[in-house]
């Protein structure tokens, strides 16, 4: 007798060691699958992988670019870990990023002919507020009406993108821009300072590292971080302990929104320098992969952000040298997430084939 499909049985104990290796296993499996895809496309896999993963970072400029891409990814991912630790599935970081860019960029446009030391700090602050406010909408909907935050936060991404779209073709359009859908360029003091001459890596990296350190402190040393963790592991235990879960939901969404908002502002005031439609190549969504690949741990997230940033750079080089569409970068990101979730499942569950009579 049959039973074609195995049943999924919970393991009594999950291996702590395997838990640690999950990200590494997922990356190795992604590389193997990637090689197979390259072979099927008719490329020498060694050459293709070299083009994809090594050549982009074989120059100082390349390494600087890696940090440029990793900065928003790491900053959003650490913000997301406030939500994910609390078992809140905020997948609307892209929208919170966009709102941060709109709020912070709005300040820059308002003061486009001002050059003052306070401009950039004000923009960063406005960016954080914009992202946090956008993040609080799903928090209110979740706590007041019990709506699913996955849906609401995702839908709000598109609302934010349309608002940006409206602004750059409407009220905020550059009057000297030949009707292109973009804003005025920001003034010099509204730009993120560059860290090295001739390289695009900017002050946003320092902000990111600082916020990662602060988050590490909150997660591991404060009662607030503890409450987030308990509420994520077991809402019942959090209720028993008397932790206010509504406050925790608001806090997690606000912090995540603020971090994503700062990331968005850092993009428009850093490499871009103005507002236009496509300010983010899906950093807000890709950061979800970074957060999980980094096991929601600050150090892990730093490494994961570099790995995933590399897929962005590799995709550009692959398009240039192998004539493969740059979407192959998203395929790699998807593979990492796929293997990550698969490995995660197999750590906690095993497949068994039930014997039948």
């Amino acid at each position, binding site marked *: 007798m049959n039973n074609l499909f195995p049943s999924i049985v919970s393991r009594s104990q999950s291996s702590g060691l395997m838990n640690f290796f999950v990200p590494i296993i997922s990356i190795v499996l992604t590389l193997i699958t990637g090689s197979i895809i390259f072979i099927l496309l008719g490329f020498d896999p060694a050459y293709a992988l070299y083009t994809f993963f090594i050549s982009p970072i074989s120059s100082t400029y390349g390494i600087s670019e890696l940090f440029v891409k990793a900065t928003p990814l790491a900053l959003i991912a650490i913000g997301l870990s406030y939500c994910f630790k609390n078992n809140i599935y905020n997948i609307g970081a892209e929208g919170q990023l966009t709102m941060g860019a709109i709020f912070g960029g709005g300040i820059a446009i308002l003061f486009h002919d001002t050059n003052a030391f306070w401009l950039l700090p004000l923009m960063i602050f406005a960016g954080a507020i914009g992202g946090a406010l956008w993040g609080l909408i799903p928090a209110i909907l979740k706590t007041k009406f019990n709506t699913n935050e996955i849906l609401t936060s995702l839908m709000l991404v598109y609302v934010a993108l349309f608002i940006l779209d409206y602004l750059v073709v409407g009220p905020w359009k550059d009057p000297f821009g030949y009707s292109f859908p973009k804003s005025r360029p920001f003034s010099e003091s509204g730009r993120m300072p560059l860290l090295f001459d001739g390289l695009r890596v900017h002050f946003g990296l320092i902000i990111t590292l600082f916020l990662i350190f602060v988050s590490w402190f909150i997660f591991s040393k*404060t009662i607030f971080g*503890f409450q987030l963790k308990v509420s994520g*592991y*077991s809402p*019942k*235990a959090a209720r*028993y*302990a008397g932790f206010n879960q509504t406050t925790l939901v608001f806090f997690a969404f606000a912090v995540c929104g603020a971090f994503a908002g700062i990331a968005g502002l850092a993009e428009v005031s850093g490499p871009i320098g103005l507002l236009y439609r496509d300010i983010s190549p899906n950093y807000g969504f890709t950061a979800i992969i970074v957060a999980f690949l980094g096991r929601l741990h600050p150090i892990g997230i730093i490494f994961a952000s570099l790995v995933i940033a590399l897929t962005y750079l590799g995709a550009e080089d692959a398009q240039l040298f192998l004539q493969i569409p740059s979407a192959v970068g998203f395929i790699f990101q998807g593979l990492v997430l796929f293997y990550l979730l698969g490995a995660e499942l197999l750590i906690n569950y095993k497949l068994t084939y039930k014997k*039948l009579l």
Partner: protein
Amino acid sequence: MSDTILNIENITKSFPRVIANKKVTFDIKKNAVHAILGENGAGKSTLVKILYGLLEPDEGNIKLNNKDFKVNSPAEARKQGIGMVFQHFSLFDSLSVKENLILGIDEKMSYSDLEDKLENISSRYNLPLDLDAPITALSAGEKQRVEIVRILLQDPQILIMDEPTSVLTPQEVESLFVTLNALVKEGRTILYITHKLEEVISICDTVTIMRSGEIIDTSSTSNQTAKTLATKMLGQKLDDLKTNYGHIKDKVNFEVKNISCDFNDPFLTDLKNISFQVRVGEIYGIAGVAGNGQSELMDILTGENINIKSGSITFDSKKIEKYGPQKRRDLSISFVPENRLGHSAVPELSLSENILLSQFPKNNFIKNGIILKNNVDDFANNVINEFKVITPGNDAKASSLSGGNLQKYVIGREISSKPKILIISHPTWGIDAGAEHSIRESLIELSQNGTSIIVISQDLDELIEITHKISVIYDGKLSKPFRTSEVEIEKLGLLMGGKNE
């Protein structure tokens, strides 16, 4: 040809640390309602899960119509003629009755065939159904009807009903009994799992009584009374222990007055006008079979649920019914809910971290929001040493401890802060005898030092051993208190089974 349909022989099933069924042997007669009666944890559910193919027995045989019967899944059990209606329904809420029925049966069937069959079943067994109604719109009784019809569509010889009346109104219970009688008249057999004495006597022909995994007796119900059943179900309890009443003060320091709470949920029990008083140093026990409102009451006593309809809780002349758990702890009230894993402790966290779930004003665990790890670790080590918790250290995860050790740790955590009152649910549930003894000892010692204790438990032995006063909760109502040293076991048994006299 005998009139026995099912022979159960020497069924044994053990789980880690517990033997759920020990050489269970009895026969079930054809064309009858056969009750399995027992307290929670007596092994009833394990036995029916084996019959229905959800669990595999370690030893023993089952014969159906004198042929060996062995199934590995519910689908096979249904094919062999055994159907089961679970206590918790498994229906798709957003689909209609008709769609649920089509999905629930094993063979393929067209809607028109289904409707023909249904008409037949509905009229024959008093099971009217509105086929197009969505499940969400149905009452608990109607949902149960859908479940029964779904099983009947497959024409079972034996129908297992697991605590079928627990979610029904009295009227719905009556109509269920009409259905059951019609089924038996047709030659089917019903296996009726319950802990309600009254039901056994009114509709069952034969009763098998289980206690701690063993069969105590199988006999006809005609010569049984609620009293004799209660005694067998609970066992001959120990003689009165010398409980010391000397240290109890006259002063009442915890009073619950007329608490009522409606949940509007068929799986929760509404609380009806609950009142009791606890004196300084007194251990007050609340007995009862699970599902009669204990966990609902516990949530109200801990402050996890503060949405009560009416009534008050007074502690040290303060009204506290609107206080959350932390505010109650600030007044030196401490609690241990029934569930260790995921309620009173978080399995994924270390023992040290678990200390932080329950903080009292005296503990110096937090300063300006920052955790003072040394103080927490010291406290954890102290609990581990004092309560003889077996563990490699305070950084071990709570999940790595055995149930008994974790319970000692959790209770130790609460006792170490010297609360004025301890509210504890099922203190020794699912743990080994050694840990059980040491926990009971520490509760008694705590009360002698002036702490009042409220113990909610299904374990009557335990309550009789440690409490000074005891009352019984049944269907959300609390009986008057009895002095534990004077009360008769039979009296408590009857109250637990819902019989007031």
